[in-house]
């Protein structure tokens, strides 16, 4: 049973596909059920239900001129396009669109690493380039720059940044959209635009000064639908000379308050790479009595948690610190961080970790020389793409809700309690408990994770997960905690929570959408931004 684009019959669809084939060639347009199966969301909780949104067709242009032509054809036929880069946005919708019957604009064939500059520390890439590709390009040429990559290396720097993905190195690089510098975009009428210094003919600073002059529209293309990004620049860290780790542990539950303040200072001063928070008490969750305490309705008291820690001989919290830079600088930074925290928090203790010159040896990459258990994934910490993280994927995949919360210990305690209570009614692992630590992925904020698995052959389980996701988004919003990224099936729910002053932000974006893309061609609904044609 073929899926048709909205407001289109079989013969009009055939004419659309024929025009696409004329633009990109017979081999690069697909519409059969067999060919379209891989464009479904492999991690969908609404798999095989009426809520699942599927594309009608896919087209893979080879270059920018073909992208422009595809956009013009889509506009002429009024068919929504859903652009993807490498199509690996698992947990956030994969390659699936927001509107049933959309044509996927598959940019995988545009896979050129256009430039890596090791003197000025940037790269310029096309959307089909993966982190694996970019890393290989750099290694094969012996270039002295380090990339920042998310967990699975098959994703696209362009696609990941446009969905505001994150990595695991220094703050100015691990916010991938924040680290971008310069874009080229095909607009909804097929026109080609460059942002920042790229707008100035002859400028050689496109990847060095992102703003150019006047308003900078680059934010409209992240989680947005105002154009198709065909090139994107990124700032890169010069290959650091040395890597060092250290662990700090604090005894009491409320020590987290001061610990967070110290981490904020160290991070915002540019002294540390990503910091991993953890609670050593997590090791006790297998004990039913402790698990009941940590997930107690309304949350346990500080005294109860401190007593449990004391009885087990464990610390309440720990931070894994990482340092990148010259050897002497990393040693001084670790010494400073250790002294700063230990002199302020009674009972805190520090452990020296691993340290070695970069690039790391194979043995160092295997991460078996760390003198204590660590949550740090060594390859990610050093900007080396991998698929090793896939070992955490359970069942047939998962969805993800990652609420943003302030970098404040009290806020951590509140989210543990509120979302812990809210999630108790679902038969899922305890994503929120009194030992849940914050994630410090984005450079200036914390997040927590709710990522229940899905099972393609278990609709009841999936329906429960789907209900839980919507419930958690709603409860979190009541406390001012919003999701940072969502699959198409949740984007309206999440966008609705950003509702200040009657949803002024969404109204502004939709007014612009109507002006720039009156036919609603580019990814209608993405980011919760709907063109008039599809607005309810």
């Amino acid at each position, binding site marked *: 049973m073929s899926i048709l684009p909205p407001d289109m019959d079989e013969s009009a669809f055939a004419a659309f596909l024929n025009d696409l084939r004329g633009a990109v060639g017979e081999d*690069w347009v*697909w519409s059969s059920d*067999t*060919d379209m*199966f*891989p*464009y*479904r969301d*492999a*991690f969908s909780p609404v798999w095989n239900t009426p809520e699942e949104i599927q594309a009608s067709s*896919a087209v*893979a242009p080879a270059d920018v001129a073909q992208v422009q032509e595809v956009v013009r054809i889509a506009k002429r036929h009024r068919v929504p396009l859903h652009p993807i880069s*490498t*199509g*690996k946005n*698992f947990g956030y919708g*994969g*390659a699936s669109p927001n509107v049933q019957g959309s044509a996927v604009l*598959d940019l*995988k*064939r545009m896979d050129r690493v256009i430039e890596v500059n090791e003197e000025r520390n940037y790269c310029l890439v096309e959307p089909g380039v993966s982190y*694996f590709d970019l890393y290989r390009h750099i290694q094969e040429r012996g270039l002295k720059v380090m990339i920042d990559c998310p967990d699975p*290396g*098959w994703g696209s720097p362009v696609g990941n940044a446009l969905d505001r993905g994150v990595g695991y190195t220094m703050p100015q690089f691990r916010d991938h959209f924040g680290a971008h510098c310069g874009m080229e975009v095909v607009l909804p009428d097929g026109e080609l635009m460059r942002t920042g210094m790229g707008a100035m003919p002859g400028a050689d600073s496109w990847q060095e000064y992102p703003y150019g002059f006047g308003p900078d529209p680059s934010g409209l293309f992240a989680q947005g639908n105002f154009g198709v990004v065909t090139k994107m620049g990124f700032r890169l860290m010069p290959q650091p000379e040395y890597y060092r780790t250290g662990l700090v542990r604090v005894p009491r539950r409320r020590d987290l308050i001061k610990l967070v303040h110290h981490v904020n200072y160290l991070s915002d001063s540019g002294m540390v790479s990503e910091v991993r928070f953890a609670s050593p008490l997590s090791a006790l969750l297998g004990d039913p009595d402790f698990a009941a305490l940590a997930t107690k309705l309304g949350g346990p008291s500080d005294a109860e948690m401190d007593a449990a820690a004391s009885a087990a001989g464990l610390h309440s919290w720990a931070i894994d610190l990482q340092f990148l830079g010259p050897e002497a600088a990393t040693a001084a930074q670790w010494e400073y961080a250790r002294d700063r925290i230990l002199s302020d928090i009674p009972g805190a203790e520090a452990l020296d970790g691993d340290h070695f010159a970069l690039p790391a040896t194979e043995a160092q990459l*295997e*991460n*078996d020389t760390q003198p204590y258990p660590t949550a740090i*994934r*060594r*390859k990610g910490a050093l900007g080396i793409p*991998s*698929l*090793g*993280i*896939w*070992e955490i*994927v*359970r*069942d*047939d*995949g998962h969805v993800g809700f990652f609420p943003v919360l302030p970098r404040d210990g009290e806020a951590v305690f509140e989210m543990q309690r509120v979302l812990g209570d809210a999630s108790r009614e679902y038969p899922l692992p305890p994503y929120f408990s009194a030992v849940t630590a914050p994630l410090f992925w984005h450079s200036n904020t914390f997040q927590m994770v709710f990522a229940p698995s899905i099972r393609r052959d278990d609709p009841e389980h999936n329906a429960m997960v789907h209900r839980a996701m919507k419930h958690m988004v709603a409860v979190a919003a009541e406390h001012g905690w919003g999701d940072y990224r969502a699959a198409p099936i949740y984007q309206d729910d999440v966008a609705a929570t950003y509702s200040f002053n009657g949803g002024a932000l969404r109204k502004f974006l939709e007014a612009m959408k109507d002006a720039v893309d009156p036919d609603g061609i580019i990814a209608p609904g993405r980011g919760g931004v709907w063109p008039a044609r599809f607005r309810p």
Partner: protein
Amino acid sequence: MKVLFASVLLGAALSLSVAAQSEDPQVAHGRQVFERQCAPCHGRGPGDDRSPMLPGTAALAEKYDGARPAALEDRSDLSAPVITLFVRRGSGAMPFFRASELSDADIAAIAAYLQTSSAD
């Protein structure tokens, strides 16, 4: 001794070069595609951070429990149609691969490569 050592090295380099030159082009292509697209999850090596196996290899080790090799490069029973089924339809946590990223010709080349790798 130095001369002998150099001769051995030269001989090894020449035999590698001859092997590379004589490799069937489809097998060579399959090797490259496998290394880039499959090996990060299904390779023979260890996983990250002290995991004994990569995730795909570990999943197959659990599934087959010794009845079949866990690493795909040790399998001689994977024809192009079988690989196509798993690549295009996925399996468990393994998602689907589109023709834009892995063509039918790429899959046939992977099958040809696995025939040679499993014989090594």
